[in-house]
């Protein structure tokens, strides 16, 4: 089981965001990948797409199900992780290392509403 990095913020929908300056890398948590099972497909937005906090930015499919991905914060998509197109299974093997998008935050104050690592771990107990 992967550890939950203390520097990340987490959502109740099981995404994480790793913020540096005005940018944040976004991925899904170890708990989320365990619940999903074998990931076979990740659908991501275009660079430049504008997202509101809580808005869907893509979908992730495992062998058995489809789930939405929700943005932890508002902002503009600055980068997408194109390696997930051919290696979606790396979301299972290293969920906290394989980010999906980088977002340029437009309202950094929103991060105050997110969970820290210990709050998130309480949530999934």
């Amino acid at each position, binding site marked *: 089981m992967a550890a939950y990095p203390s520097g990340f913020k987490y959502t109740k929908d099981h995404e994480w965001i790793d913020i540096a300056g005005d940018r944040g890398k976004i991925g899904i948590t170890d708990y989320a990948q365990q619940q999903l*099972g*074998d990931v*076979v*497909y990740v659908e991501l937005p275009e660079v430049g797409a504008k997202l509101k906090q809580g808005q869907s930015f893509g*979908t992730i*499919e*495992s*062998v*058995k199900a*489809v789930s939405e991905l929700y943005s932890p914060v508002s902002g503009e998509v600055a980068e997408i992780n194109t390696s997930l*197109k051919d290696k979606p299974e790396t979301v*299972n093997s290293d969920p906290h290392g394989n980010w999906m998008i980088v977002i340029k935050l437009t309202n950094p104050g929103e991060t105050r509403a997110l969970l820290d690592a210990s709050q998130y771990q309480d949530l999934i107990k």
Partner: protein
Amino acid sequence: MEQATEAPLKKTPLNARHRASGARMVSFGGWDMPVEYSGGIVHEHMAVRTRAGLFDVSHMGEIEIAGKDALAAVQRISSNDASRLQVGQAQYSGLLSPRGTFVDDLLVYRLAPAHFLLVVNAGNIAKDYAWIVEQIKPVGDAVAVDASSRYALLAIQGPAAQEVLQPLTGVPLDAIKYYWFAHGEVASVRATISRTGYTGEDGFEVFIPPQSADRVWQAILESGRAAGVIPCGLGARDTLRLEAAMRLHGNDIDETTTALEADLGWIVGWKKDDFVGAPALRAQRASGVKRKLVGFEMMDRGIARHGYDAYVNGAKAGTVTSGTQTPFLKKAIGMAYLPVEHIAADTEFDVDIRERRIRARVVPMPFYKRQK
């Protein structure tokens, strides 16, 4: 919203074993069942294709029909021709409505000349039993019994199935042909062993008393350890059966789809006397079916799922009934009902995947066929 008044989930005799083994449990057809173990669906799927996997399918229902007129009773409710079964032989069949649609699909085992065992889907046991009792009333001397609680059912599936099971039984497995069965013992437990399955691989299904299920489960895993046999859940069972193009009741066939539309004309005993659904099927055969279940694979990225719409030339033309990314073939495949004008191999159509039209093409079924 889930109903607050749902009945508690039923449990197989192996429920505690699954939980102790780290299985992820889900609700399926009213049962609390393992969907996957810690290795995941892909790992389990590949184990069955390359070695062998062990499934607990004790949730399946068993209905026995016995009495002097048992054959006539089975012939009335089952679409296939049970008179062609010898004692010790089984066949795939449909339990059809008067419209020729599927109340359920099932396996019919001939235990004795006038004693049959029907294996039906877990979620349909009560419905099927009530239906059968009603339909066989006019037949004469035949009684149906819901014997589901008297059986646990294990499936050992994969190319290594025989070598794993053989050390545990005195029954010569080599002598059991595909869709035949024999009685004997497995791990010193009274058992009926049938060469059947729902994976597209060679393998056996083993009927045993529920109180001995855990003992036999453990014995098979122990016997298969060197061969790499692992427990498998319903997730892999679904991806395996889909690669083998086996229909799933509730997904691909149901009370709105006929045996002909499902391309299962081969389980209809056209030559036998009247049976429930026969007039409707004969009429449909004479007038021609309008739609048929076909296999397809996605040409562009995307996975079609149950219930997605299919479009031909921009117009909604059908519905996807099953779909997944298959672990062994590594393609997105599925089954869909399409108008018969559009079912030829290589015909292209679109699937609406979250409001995007993704190209698919009709391919022959099964998607996977094992090397013999």
